């Protein structure tokens, strides 16, 4: 008799706990290189995006993100302009990504001018003249200076050029939101 009671109570408790513990997570797909996710944000390829596209950090912490070329076609060189708030962030360093890498070292120049970061990159030598697809152009490091929200974005004056130095239309300009606490 006691066993029957225990069995039923156990069943009820287990079922209740099961139901209570069942939560369906949000259907969130936030990878900045996800074409569908970017399309939902109005960023269509070819595009230049940041990964990750958001940060939650403390003041004084480093912000390391990758600049990606997303689904580009026959790109031979680029002049990329990145905007940031110099009052909130300090540029620290950069590292060339593997997208423009070939046996012959490409031209890869980075300039920091009062809230604007310029990246010049182009293939050198006969081995490889252009590249298509998605890849990391550069890894950039900033440091946060003050609390608050700030944005790093790809300026619309950015240029992607093919091997004939003709401009490739860029449909998406990525941005990364930084929340500093």
């Amino acid at each position, binding site marked *: 008799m006691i066993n*029957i009671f225990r069995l*039923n109570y156990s069943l009820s408790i287990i079922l209740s706990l099961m139901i209570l513990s*069942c939560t369906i*997570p949000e259907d969130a*797909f936030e*990878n900045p290189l996800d*074409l569908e996710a970017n399309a939902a944000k109005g960023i269509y390829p070819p595009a230049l995006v940041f990964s990750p596209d958001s940060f939650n950090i403390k003041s004084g912490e480093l912000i390391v993100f*990758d600049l*990606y070329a997303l689904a580009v076609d026959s790109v031979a060189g680029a002049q990329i302009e990145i905007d940031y708030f110099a009052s909130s962030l300090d540029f620290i360093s950069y590292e060339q990504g593997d997208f423009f890498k070939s046996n012959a070292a490409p031209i890869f120049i980075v300039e920091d001018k009062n809230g604007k970061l310029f990246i010049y990159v182009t293939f050198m030598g006969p081995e490889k003249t252009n590249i298509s697809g998605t890849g990391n152009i550069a890894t950039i490091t900033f440091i946060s200076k003050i609390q608050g929200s700030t944005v790093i974005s790809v300026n619309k004056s950015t240029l992607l050029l093919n091997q004939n130095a003709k401009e490739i239309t860029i449909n998406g300009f990525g941005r990364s939101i930084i929340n500093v606490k």
Partner: protein
Amino acid sequence: MNKVSLYIFIILNLTNLNAQLDKKTMAVLNFKGIGINTLEAVTLTDIFNAEITKTNISSLIDRSEVKVSLKNQGLDQSSCLSAECISKVGAALEVELIMTGVINKNNESFNLEIKIFEVSKAMKPLLVTSLVNGEVVIRKKLKEVKMSPLKEKTVSYIGSTDGFINEIEIMAWELMGLNPPEIKVEKQKNIAQVLIVNNNNQYERVIRSALAPGFGQRYAGDKLWGWVWLGSEVVIGTLAYLEFSDYKTSLNNYNKYQQQYVESKHPDTITFLKIKSQESRNNMISRDKGMTNLLYAFAGVWTLNVMHAYFLTPENLSEAKNTNYFDLVYNNFLNQPEIRFSISLN
């Protein structure tokens, strides 16, 4: 060998008991009632007395005679339970045996304890001389000896007053060392069946089934339905657990694919992981719905089980109620005995 000895002992004991009671004069005092009123106690005593008379073992003093005689002596029957009082009553009534009883009623629980005292051996006349104001006074006193019951019997009964009355009647026969009439034993079986049903009243069944599916049905004697309801709940519970298990697996897969998706830098891999992640999530939703439905089913079956317990008509009830008979019963509402006639309408 031991059994033979036991039988011989019982036979000798019964023979001895019959010899002790055989044709001796006896009076039955009003039972003392606890939890019942005096009228009820007197009624039950009358019933018991009538049954004792039927056994024709002892020579029973008429109840009215007992009443009048003791009233004249200023003795209260029902409260006369001490050896001294019983001795006095015995002497007053000039009987050899006195039968006393105590009925204890608590809700539907009855307890009757009856004792037979052989008062003829309890009190012996004794002449006592003493000096009062210088004169010798001779007084007759009864010398009291230690008195223990010649026989005593206790019966405990849970059920209706009808059943208790029948139990008293059976007890009267057994107390006199006789087998009770078959009709009374049979009647007690029928009452017992009704009692099973009475004990399983709707609300008790409902409460039991509400606490545990099938428990009310089992209590009502319907074990099959009891197991059906319990089994149903166990099956549904098991299915729900399996759904939960699948949900957990899907959740783990979802978390794993999500993590890989976030970390992936390759669009093709991202798309693949996204699809897998969505599949896991859809499966999770499906399992969650399945589990919720099973929970509803679980609750529904539980509710149906309670309703079934409420409307359940135990098989024994119809059989027991189909018996047509006249019966002397005690009406709890009117607080008086009455003759009842039952007839089956089907």
